[in-house]
Protein backbone atom coordinates (compact mmCIF):
# COMPACT_ATOMS: atom_id res chain seq x y z
CA UNK A 1 0.00 0.00 0.00
CA UNK A 2 2.70 2.46 1.04
CA UNK A 3 4.72 1.40 -1.97
CA UNK A 4 1.76 2.06 -4.26
CA UNK A 5 1.19 5.49 -2.74
CA UNK A 6 4.87 6.29 -3.22
CA UNK A 7 4.65 5.36 -6.87
CA UNK A 8 1.47 7.36 -7.33
CA UNK A 9 3.20 10.36 -5.82
CA UNK A 10 6.13 10.04 -8.22
CA UNK A 11 3.78 9.75 -11.20
CA UNK A 12 1.81 12.79 -10.07
CA UNK A 13 4.99 14.84 -9.84
CA UNK A 14 6.05 13.68 -13.29
CA UNK A 15 2.63 14.47 -14.76
CA UNK A 16 2.71 18.01 -13.36
CA UNK A 17 6.22 18.53 -14.67
CA UNK A 18 5.74 17.14 -18.14
CA UNK A 19 2.06 17.58 -19.01
CA UNK A 20 2.50 21.25 -19.97
CA UNK A 21 5.40 20.39 -22.26
CA UNK A 22 3.37 17.59 -23.82
CA UNK A 23 0.36 19.87 -24.43
CA UNK A 24 2.66 22.46 -25.95
CA UNK A 25 4.18 19.87 -28.27
CA UNK A 26 0.80 18.46 -29.30
CA UNK A 27 -0.52 21.92 -30.21
CA UNK A 28 2.54 22.61 -32.35
CA UNK A 29 0.95 20.15 -34.81
CA UNK A 30 -2.42 21.91 -34.68
CA UNK A 31 -3.80 23.20 -37.99
CA UNK A 32 -5.76 25.89 -36.13
CA UNK A 33 -4.02 28.93 -34.67
CA UNK A 34 -5.67 28.47 -31.28
CA UNK A 35 -4.02 26.79 -28.33
CA UNK A 36 -7.36 25.37 -27.17
CA UNK A 37 -9.23 24.15 -30.21
CA UNK A 38 -7.89 21.22 -32.22
CA UNK A 39 -8.15 21.84 -35.95
CA UNK A 40 -6.46 18.76 -37.36
CA UNK A 41 -2.86 17.66 -37.86
CA UNK A 42 -0.49 19.97 -39.71
CA UNK A 43 3.22 20.65 -40.03
CA UNK A 44 2.70 24.19 -41.28
CA UNK A 45 4.00 25.87 -38.11
CA UNK A 46 7.31 24.05 -38.49
CA UNK A 47 7.57 25.30 -42.08
CA UNK A 48 6.58 28.82 -41.04
CA UNK A 49 9.08 28.76 -38.18
CA UNK A 50 12.12 28.40 -40.40
CA UNK A 51 11.04 31.19 -42.72
CA UNK A 52 10.27 33.57 -39.85
CA UNK A 53 13.10 36.05 -39.79
CA UNK A 54 12.19 37.51 -36.40
CA UNK A 55 12.13 34.16 -34.59
CA UNK A 56 15.25 32.89 -36.30
CA UNK A 57 17.20 36.01 -35.42
CA UNK A 58 15.91 35.83 -31.82
CA UNK A 59 16.98 32.18 -31.62
CA UNK A 60 20.42 33.04 -32.99
CA UNK A 61 20.98 35.82 -30.43
CA UNK A 62 19.59 33.69 -27.59
CA UNK A 63 22.04 30.86 -28.30
CA UNK A 64 25.02 33.14 -29.01
CA UNK A 65 24.39 35.08 -25.82
CA UNK A 66 23.84 31.94 -23.73
CA UNK A 67 27.01 30.26 -24.99
CA UNK A 68 29.20 33.35 -24.62
CA UNK A 69 27.73 34.23 -21.21
CA UNK A 70 28.25 30.66 -20.00
CA UNK A 71 31.90 30.52 -21.06
CA UNK A 72 32.82 33.92 -19.64
CA UNK A 73 30.82 33.65 -16.42
CA UNK A 74 32.14 30.13 -15.74
CA UNK A 75 35.73 31.34 -16.05
CA UNK A 76 35.17 34.46 -13.94
CA UNK A 77 33.05 32.58 -11.41
CA UNK A 78 35.54 29.73 -10.97
CA UNK A 79 38.48 32.08 -10.50
CA UNK A 80 36.46 34.16 -8.01
CA UNK A 81 35.45 31.04 -6.07
CA UNK A 82 39.06 29.91 -5.83
CA UNK A 83 40.02 33.38 -4.63
CA UNK A 84 37.24 33.45 -2.06
CA UNK A 85 38.17 29.98 -0.86
CA UNK A 86 41.74 31.19 -0.32
CA UNK A 87 40.35 33.79 2.09
CA UNK A 88 39.68 31.08 4.69
CA UNK A 89 42.30 32.61 6.97
CA UNK A 90 40.40 35.90 6.92
CA UNK A 91 36.85 34.83 7.79
CA UNK A 92 35.42 38.36 8.00
CA UNK A 93 36.64 39.34 4.55
CA UNK A 94 35.38 36.03 3.23
CA UNK A 95 31.94 36.57 4.73
CA UNK A 96 31.90 40.05 3.23
CA UNK A 97 32.81 38.71 -0.21
CA UNK A 98 30.19 35.99 0.05
CA UNK A 99 27.48 38.48 0.97
CA UNK A 100 28.41 40.69 -1.95
CA UNK A 101 28.07 37.62 -4.13
CA UNK A 102 24.61 36.88 -2.70
CA UNK A 103 23.29 40.37 -3.38
CA UNK A 104 22.65 39.96 -7.12
CA UNK A 105 21.09 36.55 -6.44
CA UNK A 106 18.44 37.88 -4.05
CA UNK A 107 17.95 41.15 -5.92
CA UNK A 108 14.77 41.10 -8.02
CA UNK A 109 15.51 40.84 -11.76
CA UNK A 110 13.75 44.10 -12.50
CA UNK A 111 16.09 45.98 -10.15
CA UNK A 112 19.17 44.35 -11.67
CA UNK A 113 17.81 45.04 -15.15
CA UNK A 114 17.04 48.71 -14.64
CA UNK A 115 20.22 49.45 -12.70
CA UNK A 116 22.34 47.86 -15.41
CA UNK A 117 20.45 49.91 -18.00
CA UNK A 118 21.22 53.08 -16.05
CA UNK A 119 24.89 52.13 -15.81
CA UNK A 120 25.12 51.56 -19.57
CA UNK A 121 23.25 54.78 -20.14
CA UNK A 122 25.61 56.64 -17.81
CA UNK A 123 28.57 55.23 -19.71
CA UNK A 124 26.86 56.17 -23.01
CA UNK A 125 27.25 52.59 -24.17
CA UNK A 126 25.40 51.68 -27.36
CA UNK A 127 22.64 49.26 -26.38
CA UNK A 128 22.81 46.01 -28.27
CA UNK A 129 24.25 42.53 -28.17
CA UNK A 130 27.32 43.52 -26.13
CA UNK A 131 25.31 45.22 -23.38
CA UNK A 132 22.93 42.27 -23.22
CA UNK A 133 25.88 39.85 -23.01
CA UNK A 134 27.55 41.87 -20.23
CA UNK A 135 24.30 41.92 -18.24
CA UNK A 136 23.90 38.16 -18.67
CA UNK A 137 27.47 37.55 -17.49
CA UNK A 138 26.75 39.81 -14.51
CA UNK A 139 23.80 37.79 -13.26
CA UNK A 140 25.37 34.39 -14.08
CA UNK A 141 28.67 34.84 -12.21
CA UNK A 142 27.24 34.60 -8.64
CA UNK A 143 25.55 31.29 -9.46
CA UNK A 144 28.79 29.82 -10.78
CA UNK A 145 30.58 30.96 -7.62
CA UNK A 146 27.88 29.34 -5.49
CA UNK A 147 28.20 26.03 -7.36
CA UNK A 148 32.00 25.90 -7.22
CA UNK A 149 32.56 26.98 -3.60
CA UNK A 150 31.10 23.84 -1.95
CA UNK A 151 33.38 21.65 -4.08
CA UNK A 152 36.39 23.66 -2.94
CA UNK A 153 35.28 23.29 0.67
CA UNK A 154 34.98 19.53 0.25
CA UNK A 155 38.50 19.29 -1.14
CA UNK A 156 41.26 18.24 1.26
CA UNK A 157 43.22 21.47 1.72
CA UNK A 158 46.45 19.52 2.21
CA UNK A 159 46.27 18.23 -1.37
CA UNK A 160 47.63 21.47 -2.80
CA UNK A 161 50.35 21.67 -0.14
CA UNK A 162 51.33 18.10 -0.91
CA UNK A 163 51.47 18.81 -4.64
CA UNK A 164 53.65 21.85 -4.13
CA UNK A 165 55.89 19.96 -1.67
CA UNK A 166 56.44 17.46 -4.44
CA UNK A 167 57.62 20.23 -6.75
CA UNK A 168 54.47 21.36 -8.57
CA UNK A 169 54.30 25.05 -9.40
CA UNK A 170 51.12 26.81 -8.17
CA UNK A 171 49.76 26.91 -11.75
CA UNK A 172 50.51 23.21 -12.21
CA UNK A 173 48.82 22.35 -8.91
CA UNK A 174 45.79 24.40 -9.94
CA UNK A 175 45.49 22.61 -13.28
CA UNK A 176 46.29 19.07 -12.16
CA UNK A 177 44.91 18.98 -8.61
CA UNK A 178 42.33 21.72 -7.97
CA UNK A 179 40.48 21.81 -11.29
CA UNK A 180 39.87 18.03 -11.50
CA UNK A 181 38.63 18.06 -7.89
CA UNK A 182 36.09 20.84 -8.46
CA UNK A 183 35.25 19.81 -12.04
CA UNK A 184 31.68 18.71 -11.28
CA UNK A 185 30.97 22.02 -9.52
CA UNK A 186 32.19 23.94 -12.57
CA UNK A 187 29.96 21.89 -14.88
CA UNK A 188 26.96 22.48 -12.63
CA UNK A 189 27.69 26.20 -12.58
CA UNK A 190 28.05 26.32 -16.36
CA UNK A 191 24.76 24.47 -16.91
CA UNK A 192 23.04 26.78 -14.45
CA UNK A 193 24.44 29.84 -16.20
CA UNK A 194 23.31 28.51 -19.58
CA UNK A 195 19.72 27.88 -18.48
CA UNK A 196 19.51 31.21 -16.64
CA UNK A 197 20.69 33.04 -19.73
CA UNK A 198 18.23 31.27 -22.06
CA UNK A 199 15.39 31.91 -19.60
CA UNK A 200 15.96 35.55 -18.86
CA UNK A 201 13.43 38.12 -20.01
CA UNK A 202 13.45 41.13 -17.69
CA UNK A 203 17.16 41.89 -17.61
CA UNK A 204 17.52 41.25 -21.35
CA UNK A 205 14.57 43.49 -22.19
CA UNK A 206 16.10 46.53 -20.54
CA UNK A 207 19.63 45.94 -21.73
CA UNK A 208 19.31 45.20 -25.38
CA UNK A 209 18.84 47.45 -28.38
CA UNK A 210 19.84 47.95 -32.01
CA UNK A 211 17.49 45.25 -33.26
CA UNK A 212 18.91 42.55 -31.00
CA UNK A 213 16.15 40.54 -29.36
CA UNK A 214 16.13 37.14 -27.68
CA UNK A 215 13.44 34.46 -27.63
CA UNK A 216 12.09 35.51 -24.22
CA UNK A 217 11.55 39.07 -25.41
CA UNK A 218 9.97 37.85 -28.64
CA UNK A 219 7.60 35.45 -26.89
CA UNK A 220 6.70 37.90 -24.16
CA UNK A 221 5.77 40.68 -26.59
CA UNK A 222 3.88 38.26 -28.83
CA UNK A 223 1.89 36.88 -25.87
CA UNK A 224 -0.28 39.99 -25.80
CA UNK A 225 -2.22 38.68 -28.79
CA UNK A 226 -1.94 34.97 -28.14
CA UNK A 227 1.25 33.13 -28.94
CA UNK A 228 1.70 31.84 -32.46
CA UNK A 229 2.00 28.04 -32.70
CA UNK A 230 5.39 28.70 -34.34
CA UNK A 231 6.63 29.24 -30.79
CA UNK A 232 5.18 25.84 -29.82
CA UNK A 233 7.04 24.31 -32.75
CA UNK A 234 10.31 25.97 -31.75
CA UNK A 235 9.93 24.95 -28.10
CA UNK A 236 9.19 21.38 -29.13
CA UNK A 237 12.37 21.26 -31.20
CA UNK A 238 14.39 22.72 -28.34
CA UNK A 239 13.00 20.22 -25.83
CA UNK A 240 13.73 17.44 -28.31
CA UNK A 241 17.37 18.58 -28.73
CA UNK A 242 17.87 18.81 -24.96
CA UNK A 243 16.29 15.37 -24.44
CA UNK A 244 18.56 13.78 -27.04
CA UNK A 245 21.58 15.42 -25.38
CA UNK A 246 20.48 14.12 -21.97
CA UNK A 247 19.94 10.58 -23.27
CA UNK A 248 23.38 10.57 -24.92
CA UNK A 249 25.01 11.95 -21.76
CA UNK A 250 23.26 9.35 -19.60
CA UNK A 251 24.24 6.50 -21.90
CA UNK A 252 27.87 7.63 -21.80
CA UNK A 253 28.04 8.01 -18.03
CA UNK A 254 26.27 4.62 -17.74
CA UNK A 255 29.05 3.06 -19.82
CA UNK A 256 31.73 4.77 -17.73
CA UNK A 257 30.25 3.37 -14.54
CA UNK A 258 29.99 -0.07 -16.12
CA UNK A 259 33.62 0.00 -17.29
CA UNK A 260 34.77 0.88 -13.78
Amino acid at each position, binding site marked *: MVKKLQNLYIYLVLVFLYAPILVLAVYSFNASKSNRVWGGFSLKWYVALFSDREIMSALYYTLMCAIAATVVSTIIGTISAIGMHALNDFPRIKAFALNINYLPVINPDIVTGISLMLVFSFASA*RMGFVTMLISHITFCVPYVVLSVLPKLNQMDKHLIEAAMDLGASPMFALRKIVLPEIYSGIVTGALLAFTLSIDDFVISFFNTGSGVSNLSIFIYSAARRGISPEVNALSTLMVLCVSILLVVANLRSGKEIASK
Partner: protein
Amino acid sequence: MLVASPLASCTKGGGGGNSDKPVLYVYNWGTFIDKSVNTIFEEEFGCTVMYETYDSNEAMYQKVKGSTSNYDVVFPSDYMVEKMVKEGMLAQIDKTKIPNFANIQTRLKGMDYDPTNTYSIPYFWGTVGILYNTTMVEEPVDSWEILWNEDYKGQIIMYDSQRDSLAVALKALGYSANTRSLEELKEAEEKLIAQKPLVMAYYTDIIVDMMIGEEAALSVVYSGDAIMAMEENEDLAYAVPMEGSNVWFDNVAILSTSKNKELAEEYINFLCRDDISMLNTEEVMYSTANKNVAEELQESDWAGNDTYFVPDNVLARCEVFLDLGEFVQEYANAWLRVKGQ
Protein backbone atom coordinates in the same frame (compact mmCIF):
# COMPACT_ATOMS: atom_id res chain seq x y z
CA MET B 1 20.40 22.47 -37.84
CA LEU B 2 18.89 25.14 -35.67
CA VAL B 3 21.87 27.42 -35.72
CA ALA B 4 22.89 27.18 -39.35
CA SER B 5 19.91 28.79 -41.05
CA PRO B 6 19.69 32.06 -39.13
CA LEU B 7 23.40 32.68 -39.50
CA ALA B 8 23.04 33.75 -43.10
CA SER B 9 20.20 36.15 -42.45
CA CYS B 10 21.74 37.57 -39.32
CA THR B 11 25.26 38.44 -40.31
CA LYS B 12 24.09 41.85 -41.40
CA GLY B 13 21.98 42.16 -38.25
CA GLY B 14 24.88 41.47 -35.93
CA GLY B 15 27.17 44.39 -36.48
CA GLY B 16 24.92 47.13 -37.68
CA GLY B 17 27.82 49.32 -38.61
CA ASN B 18 29.60 46.92 -40.91
CA SER B 19 28.06 48.18 -44.13
CA ASP B 20 27.42 51.56 -45.72
CA LYS B 21 23.67 50.99 -45.87
CA PRO B 22 21.65 53.31 -43.67
CA VAL B 23 20.05 51.60 -40.70
CA LEU B 24 16.56 52.23 -39.35
CA TYR B 25 15.74 51.15 -35.81
CA VAL B 26 12.09 50.23 -35.36
CA TYR B 27 10.47 49.45 -32.00
CA ASN B 28 6.99 47.97 -32.38
CA TRP B 29 4.40 45.95 -30.48
CA GLY B 30 4.81 42.17 -30.74
CA THR B 31 2.97 40.59 -33.72
CA PHE B 32 1.93 43.97 -35.10
CA ILE B 33 3.30 43.81 -38.64
CA ASP B 34 3.33 41.44 -41.60
CA LYS B 35 6.56 39.47 -41.59
CA SER B 36 7.53 40.43 -45.14
CA VAL B 37 7.04 44.19 -44.76
CA ASN B 38 10.45 45.03 -43.32
CA THR B 39 12.18 42.99 -46.02
CA ILE B 40 10.24 44.81 -48.75
CA PHE B 41 11.24 48.15 -47.22
CA GLU B 42 14.90 47.12 -47.09
CA GLU B 43 14.85 46.11 -50.74
CA GLU B 44 13.05 49.23 -51.96
CA PHE B 45 15.05 51.74 -49.98
CA GLY B 46 18.44 50.03 -49.85
CA CYS B 47 18.66 50.09 -46.08
CA THR B 48 18.65 47.75 -43.11
CA VAL B 49 15.75 47.59 -40.68
CA MET B 50 16.62 46.65 -37.11
CA TYR B 51 13.40 45.48 -35.54
CA GLU B 52 12.54 44.95 -31.87
CA THR B 53 9.27 44.39 -30.07
CA TYR B 54 7.66 45.29 -26.74
CA ASP B 55 4.46 44.28 -24.96
CA SER B 56 3.18 47.45 -23.29
CA ASN B 57 3.33 51.22 -23.70
CA GLU B 58 4.90 51.53 -20.27
CA ALA B 59 7.71 49.11 -21.04
CA MET B 60 8.46 50.94 -24.29
CA TYR B 61 8.38 54.32 -22.53
CA GLN B 62 10.73 53.13 -19.79
CA LYS B 63 13.15 51.69 -22.32
CA VAL B 64 13.19 54.74 -24.59
CA LYS B 65 13.39 57.19 -21.70
CA GLY B 66 15.96 55.43 -19.58
CA SER B 67 18.46 53.91 -21.93
CA THR B 68 20.79 55.11 -24.62
CA SER B 69 18.88 53.10 -27.19
CA ASN B 70 18.84 54.45 -30.70
CA TYR B 71 15.32 53.72 -31.93
CA ASP B 72 13.94 55.87 -34.72
CA VAL B 73 10.34 54.72 -35.08
CA VAL B 74 8.02 53.71 -32.22
CA PHE B 75 4.31 52.82 -31.99
CA PRO B 76 2.79 54.50 -28.90
CA SER B 77 -0.95 54.37 -28.14
CA ASP B 78 -3.10 57.48 -27.81
CA TYR B 79 -2.43 58.53 -24.19
CA MET B 80 1.24 57.58 -24.54
CA VAL B 81 1.60 59.90 -27.56
CA GLU B 82 0.28 62.74 -25.41
CA LYS B 83 2.64 61.90 -22.56
CA MET B 84 5.67 61.57 -24.82
CA VAL B 85 4.87 64.85 -26.62
CA LYS B 86 4.61 66.62 -23.24
CA GLU B 87 8.04 65.30 -22.36
CA GLY B 88 9.54 66.27 -25.70
CA MET B 89 10.27 62.69 -26.72
CA LEU B 90 8.60 62.78 -30.14
CA ALA B 91 9.75 64.63 -33.23
CA GLN B 92 7.43 66.65 -35.46
CA ILE B 93 6.62 64.71 -38.59
CA ASP B 94 7.09 66.65 -41.83
CA LYS B 95 3.78 65.94 -43.59
CA THR B 96 5.17 66.97 -46.97
CA LYS B 97 7.33 63.84 -46.70
CA ILE B 98 4.26 61.69 -46.04
CA PRO B 99 2.04 62.04 -49.12
CA ASN B 100 0.32 58.79 -48.14
CA PHE B 101 -1.11 60.56 -45.10
CA ALA B 102 -3.98 61.28 -47.53
CA ASN B 103 -4.84 57.57 -47.33
CA ILE B 104 -5.74 57.83 -43.64
CA GLN B 105 -9.47 57.99 -42.89
CA THR B 106 -10.46 61.61 -42.26
CA ARG B 107 -12.60 60.71 -39.23
CA LEU B 108 -9.51 59.28 -37.51
CA LYS B 109 -7.35 62.37 -37.96
CA GLY B 110 -6.91 65.02 -35.28
CA MET B 111 -7.90 62.99 -32.25
CA ASP B 112 -7.66 64.74 -28.87
CA TYR B 113 -4.27 63.31 -27.95
CA ASP B 114 -2.63 64.91 -31.01
CA PRO B 115 -5.16 67.33 -32.58
CA THR B 116 -3.07 68.18 -35.65
CA ASN B 117 -1.33 64.82 -36.13
CA THR B 118 1.93 66.70 -35.80
CA TYR B 119 3.61 63.89 -33.89
CA SER B 120 1.71 60.75 -34.68
CA ILE B 121 -0.15 58.99 -37.47
CA PRO B 122 -2.80 56.35 -36.71
CA TYR B 123 -1.68 52.81 -37.58
CA PHE B 124 -4.29 50.44 -36.15
CA TRP B 125 -7.29 51.28 -34.02
CA GLY B 126 -10.42 49.86 -32.52
CA THR B 127 -12.93 49.96 -29.72
CA VAL B 128 -13.37 48.24 -26.36
CA GLY B 129 -16.58 46.27 -25.96
CA ILE B 130 -18.25 43.09 -24.81
CA LEU B 131 -17.46 39.79 -26.48
CA TYR B 132 -20.20 37.29 -25.67
CA ASN B 133 -21.33 33.82 -26.56
CA THR B 134 -24.75 33.91 -28.21
CA THR B 135 -25.58 30.40 -27.02
CA MET B 136 -25.10 31.43 -23.38
CA VAL B 137 -26.48 34.97 -23.50
CA GLU B 138 -29.99 35.15 -24.92
CA GLU B 139 -30.93 38.75 -24.23
CA PRO B 140 -29.55 41.54 -26.41
CA VAL B 141 -26.18 42.88 -25.30
CA ASP B 142 -26.28 46.66 -25.61
CA SER B 143 -25.37 47.94 -22.15
CA TRP B 144 -22.47 47.55 -19.75
CA GLU B 145 -25.06 46.72 -17.10
CA ILE B 146 -25.18 43.13 -18.37
CA LEU B 147 -21.80 42.67 -16.67
CA TRP B 148 -23.60 43.29 -13.38
CA ASN B 149 -26.38 40.79 -14.11
CA GLU B 150 -26.60 38.06 -11.44
CA ASP B 151 -27.64 35.50 -14.09
CA TYR B 152 -24.10 35.40 -15.38
CA LYS B 153 -22.40 34.92 -12.04
CA GLY B 154 -19.02 33.26 -12.55
CA GLN B 155 -19.20 33.57 -16.32
CA ILE B 156 -17.81 37.07 -16.74
CA ILE B 157 -14.17 37.83 -17.54
CA MET B 158 -12.98 41.38 -16.94
CA TYR B 159 -9.91 42.97 -18.48
CA ASP B 160 -6.99 43.03 -16.04
CA SER B 161 -5.83 46.60 -16.57
CA GLN B 162 -6.59 49.59 -14.41
CA ARG B 163 -7.69 52.02 -17.08
CA ASP B 164 -9.68 49.55 -19.15
CA SER B 165 -11.65 48.13 -16.23
CA LEU B 166 -12.27 51.47 -14.56
CA ALA B 167 -13.39 52.83 -17.93
CA VAL B 168 -16.07 50.11 -18.08
CA ALA B 169 -17.44 51.16 -14.68
CA LEU B 170 -17.12 54.90 -15.40
CA LYS B 171 -18.93 54.53 -18.72
CA ALA B 172 -21.64 52.38 -17.13
CA LEU B 173 -22.20 55.22 -14.66
CA GLY B 174 -22.30 57.75 -17.48
CA TYR B 175 -19.00 59.46 -16.65
CA SER B 176 -15.97 60.19 -18.79
CA ALA B 177 -13.25 57.53 -18.91
CA ASN B 178 -10.78 60.39 -18.38
CA THR B 179 -12.46 61.79 -15.31
CA ARG B 180 -10.39 63.68 -12.78
CA SER B 181 -13.15 63.75 -10.22
CA LEU B 182 -12.35 61.76 -7.11
CA GLU B 183 -16.06 61.21 -6.39
CA GLU B 184 -16.76 59.74 -9.81
CA LEU B 185 -13.70 57.54 -9.54
CA LYS B 186 -14.82 56.39 -6.10
CA GLU B 187 -18.24 55.45 -7.47
CA ALA B 188 -16.62 53.47 -10.27
CA GLU B 189 -14.39 51.71 -7.76
CA GLU B 190 -17.41 50.74 -5.66
CA LYS B 191 -19.25 49.52 -8.73
CA LEU B 192 -16.34 47.26 -9.66
CA ILE B 193 -16.13 45.94 -6.11
CA ALA B 194 -19.87 45.20 -6.20
CA GLN B 195 -19.29 43.29 -9.44
CA LYS B 196 -16.50 41.13 -8.04
CA PRO B 197 -18.65 38.20 -6.83
CA LEU B 198 -19.94 37.79 -10.40
CA VAL B 199 -16.51 37.91 -12.03
CA MET B 200 -14.86 34.64 -12.96
CA ALA B 201 -11.43 36.24 -13.33
CA TYR B 202 -9.44 39.27 -14.45
CA TYR B 203 -7.31 38.31 -17.45
CA THR B 204 -5.63 39.92 -20.43
CA ASP B 205 -4.09 37.91 -23.23
CA ILE B 206 -5.81 34.58 -22.56
CA ILE B 207 -9.37 35.96 -22.72
CA VAL B 208 -9.63 35.30 -26.45
CA ASP B 209 -8.60 31.66 -26.11
CA MET B 210 -11.03 31.17 -23.22
CA MET B 211 -13.91 32.68 -25.17
CA ILE B 212 -13.10 30.49 -28.18
CA GLY B 213 -13.08 27.51 -25.84
CA GLU B 214 -16.52 28.58 -24.49
CA GLU B 215 -15.27 28.79 -20.92
CA ALA B 216 -17.08 32.05 -20.21
CA ALA B 217 -20.21 33.82 -21.42
CA LEU B 218 -19.17 37.47 -21.36
CA SER B 219 -15.86 39.31 -21.45
CA VAL B 220 -14.40 42.75 -21.97
CA VAL B 221 -12.03 42.78 -24.97
CA TYR B 222 -10.48 44.98 -27.65
CA SER B 223 -12.31 44.83 -30.97
CA GLY B 224 -9.21 43.49 -32.75
CA ASP B 225 -9.09 40.50 -30.44
CA ALA B 226 -12.86 40.08 -30.78
CA ILE B 227 -12.46 39.74 -34.56
CA MET B 228 -9.85 37.03 -34.09
CA ALA B 229 -12.11 35.16 -31.63
CA MET B 230 -15.17 35.43 -33.88
CA GLU B 231 -13.20 33.95 -36.79
CA GLU B 232 -12.51 30.86 -34.70
CA ASN B 233 -15.91 30.45 -33.05
CA GLU B 234 -19.11 31.40 -34.88
CA ASP B 235 -21.21 31.63 -31.71
CA LEU B 236 -19.30 34.67 -30.51
CA ALA B 237 -20.54 38.22 -31.03
CA TYR B 238 -19.26 41.67 -30.11
CA ALA B 239 -21.05 44.80 -29.00
CA VAL B 240 -20.03 48.32 -28.06
CA PRO B 241 -22.51 49.31 -25.32
CA MET B 242 -24.79 52.29 -25.82
CA GLU B 243 -23.32 54.17 -22.82
CA GLY B 244 -20.18 54.58 -24.88
CA SER B 245 -16.73 53.11 -24.57
CA ASN B 246 -13.07 53.65 -25.19
CA VAL B 247 -11.70 53.98 -28.71
CA TRP B 248 -7.98 53.36 -28.93
CA PHE B 249 -5.30 54.12 -31.45
CA ASP B 250 -1.88 52.64 -31.91
CA ASN B 251 0.12 55.23 -33.78
CA VAL B 252 3.42 55.42 -35.56
CA ALA B 253 5.76 58.20 -34.43
CA ILE B 254 9.38 59.29 -34.68
CA LEU B 255 11.54 59.81 -31.59
CA SER B 256 13.12 63.21 -31.18
CA THR B 257 16.46 61.46 -30.69
CA SER B 258 16.24 59.80 -34.11
CA LYS B 259 19.44 60.15 -36.10
CA ASN B 260 17.76 59.22 -39.36
CA LYS B 261 14.55 61.20 -39.48
CA GLU B 262 14.26 61.21 -43.26
CA LEU B 263 14.40 57.44 -43.51
CA ALA B 264 11.96 57.23 -40.59
CA GLU B 265 9.54 59.43 -42.54
CA GLU B 266 9.99 57.21 -45.58
CA TYR B 267 9.12 54.25 -43.37
CA ILE B 268 5.94 55.89 -42.07
CA ASN B 269 4.94 56.86 -45.59
CA PHE B 270 5.63 53.28 -46.63
CA LEU B 271 3.38 51.91 -43.85
CA CYS B 272 0.57 54.21 -45.01
CA ARG B 273 0.90 52.93 -48.60
CA ASP B 274 -2.16 50.92 -49.67
CA ASP B 275 -0.45 47.63 -50.57
CA ILE B 276 1.62 47.60 -47.37
CA SER B 277 -1.38 48.55 -45.24
CA MET B 278 -3.25 45.67 -46.81
CA LEU B 279 -0.48 43.18 -45.93
CA ASN B 280 -0.37 44.40 -42.34
CA THR B 281 -4.14 44.45 -41.98
CA GLU B 282 -4.50 40.88 -43.19
CA GLU B 283 -1.84 39.77 -40.72
CA VAL B 284 -2.85 41.80 -37.66
CA MET B 285 -6.65 41.83 -38.21
CA TYR B 286 -7.12 45.06 -36.24
CA SER B 287 -9.13 47.87 -37.85
CA THR B 288 -6.95 49.67 -40.36
CA ALA B 289 -6.60 53.44 -40.40
CA ASN B 290 -6.18 53.33 -44.20
CA LYS B 291 -9.41 54.31 -46.00
CA ASN B 292 -8.59 52.61 -49.32
CA VAL B 293 -7.81 49.32 -47.61
CA ALA B 294 -11.00 49.62 -45.56
CA GLU B 295 -13.00 50.21 -48.76
CA GLU B 296 -11.42 47.25 -50.45
CA LEU B 297 -12.16 45.03 -47.45
CA GLN B 298 -15.80 46.17 -47.49
CA GLU B 299 -16.07 44.10 -50.66
CA SER B 300 -14.46 41.03 -49.10
CA ASP B 301 -16.17 38.45 -46.91
CA TRP B 302 -15.71 40.87 -44.00
CA ALA B 303 -18.39 43.12 -45.48
CA GLY B 304 -20.89 44.36 -42.93
CA ASN B 305 -18.69 43.36 -39.99
CA ASP B 306 -19.42 46.17 -37.52
CA THR B 307 -16.68 45.04 -35.20
CA TYR B 308 -14.10 45.66 -37.88
CA PHE B 309 -15.69 48.59 -39.73
CA VAL B 310 -16.67 50.68 -36.72
CA PRO B 311 -19.78 52.68 -37.77
CA ASP B 312 -19.70 56.47 -37.36
CA ASN B 313 -22.39 56.45 -34.68
CA VAL B 314 -20.41 53.96 -32.57
CA LEU B 315 -17.23 55.98 -33.00
CA ALA B 316 -19.17 59.09 -31.94
CA ARG B 317 -20.06 57.63 -28.54
CA CYS B 318 -16.53 56.48 -27.79
CA GLU B 319 -13.72 58.56 -26.33
CA VAL B 320 -9.95 58.18 -26.40
CA PHE B 321 -7.86 57.80 -23.25
CA LEU B 322 -5.97 60.95 -22.39
CA ASP B 323 -2.82 61.20 -20.36
CA LEU B 324 -3.92 61.80 -16.77
CA GLY B 325 -0.58 63.13 -15.57
CA GLU B 326 -0.14 62.73 -11.82
CA PHE B 327 -3.82 61.84 -11.39
CA VAL B 328 -3.14 58.39 -12.86
CA GLN B 329 -1.94 57.45 -9.37
CA GLU B 330 -5.55 57.78 -8.13
CA TYR B 331 -6.63 55.31 -10.80
CA ALA B 332 -3.86 52.95 -9.76
CA ASN B 333 -4.93 53.16 -6.12
CA ALA B 334 -8.59 52.61 -6.95
CA TRP B 335 -7.70 49.58 -9.07
CA LEU B 336 -5.48 48.19 -6.32
CA ARG B 337 -8.36 48.46 -3.87
CA VAL B 338 -10.67 46.66 -6.32
CA LYS B 339 -8.21 43.85 -6.89
CA GLY B 340 -7.31 43.65 -3.20
CA GLN B 341 -10.89 43.28 -1.95
